[in-house]
């Protein structure tokens, strides 16, 4: 359900960008999805297939997901570490003064369209 809502937003933004560029059909959409963004990639692509095929412009259009690994920064020692493996606590110094550097993205990176001749 969550992913379907996100898909509606993606469709809206992609259609807008396509129209602005005078494009009538989009071949693929590339997404940057952060590892801790709460999006399940498989659900997103499933919802995408269902919803995109209902749109003339996006019929058969593929959704490609490029994952972004989550990285947390520690203010205690200044080092970065992988979020999923260690969570809130810094594995280098044990500090809990840490914050997410990246990995929360739900971003449309680019759309791929057939080249007009």
């Amino acid at each position, binding site marked *: 359900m969550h992913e*379907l*809502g996100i898909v509606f937003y993606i469709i809206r*933004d992609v259609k807008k960008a396509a129209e602005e560029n005078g494009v009538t059909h989009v071949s693929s959409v590339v997404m940057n999805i952060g590892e801790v963004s709460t999006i399940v990639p498989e659900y997103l692509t499933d919802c995408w297939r269902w919803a995109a095929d209902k749109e003339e412009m996006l019929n058969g259009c593929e959704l490609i997901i490029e994952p972004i690994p989550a990285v947390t920064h520690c203010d205690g020692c200044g080092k970065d570490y992988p979020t999923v493996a260690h969570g809130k606590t810094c594995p280098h110094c044990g500090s809990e003064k840490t914050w997410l550097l990246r990995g929360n993205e739900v971003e449309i990176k680019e759309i791929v369209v057939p080249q007009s001749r």
Partner: protein
Amino acid sequence: MDEVKVIELKKSVFEANDRDADALRGELKERGVFLLNLMSAPGSGKTTTLIQTINRLKDKIRIAVMEADIDSDVDAVKIKDATGVESIQLHTGGMCHLDAEMTKQGLQALLVESRKTAGAQRQMTAGAQRQKTALLKEESQPDLVILENVGNLVCPAEFDTGAVKNAMILSVPEGHDKPLKYPLMFSVCDVVVINKIDVMPYFDFDLEKCKEYIHMRNPKATVIPICAKTGEGVEAFAEWLLKEVKNWKAK
């Protein structure tokens, strides 16, 4: 192979909603209406807490309620019957949250419905077909509109509704470690109400640990323990809300 062209977007999916939400907040500011977005897991006591809170505040300020659910109008009717304030039911059409545009549609419906009976239902329309219109002007408008969001701790946290403040209810049976499991929800809330404190002896719920976990996510969050059933502590939440409404109107 056909030649292709790549159009770079680099655009957050939440960007358009964040913009809509800021615009809605601006409009509410201009009209002097305070919008509270109330979130929680299903069954934590949102509706009961609201009834208790509204009954303590309804003689001081004008209040209206928007109930968002996937289906039915039980909550809107319950609020109307128990408090007498205006309440409307919003249906999300299967969606797990409300976004700024849906909230705006709800506010428009609420202001139009304010002279009719409560319990009216609004079916939301999906993203692309939504109409962008300004809120209607009405003379007798509420000071405080409370949006009871869909019971869910994941999606509502990601979508700014345009509310002035976000509140969430965590009930004792859910466990004191919930802030660790749903960090985003706790980081976006201005106030966390801990409900059902009357059953604390029966659960391994550590209030101090819970506060610590909430403040790890959000150092500025106000934590208010209550029991909506008996009314214990509800006064503190009502006072917080009244103060915030007054601040918003005065600023």
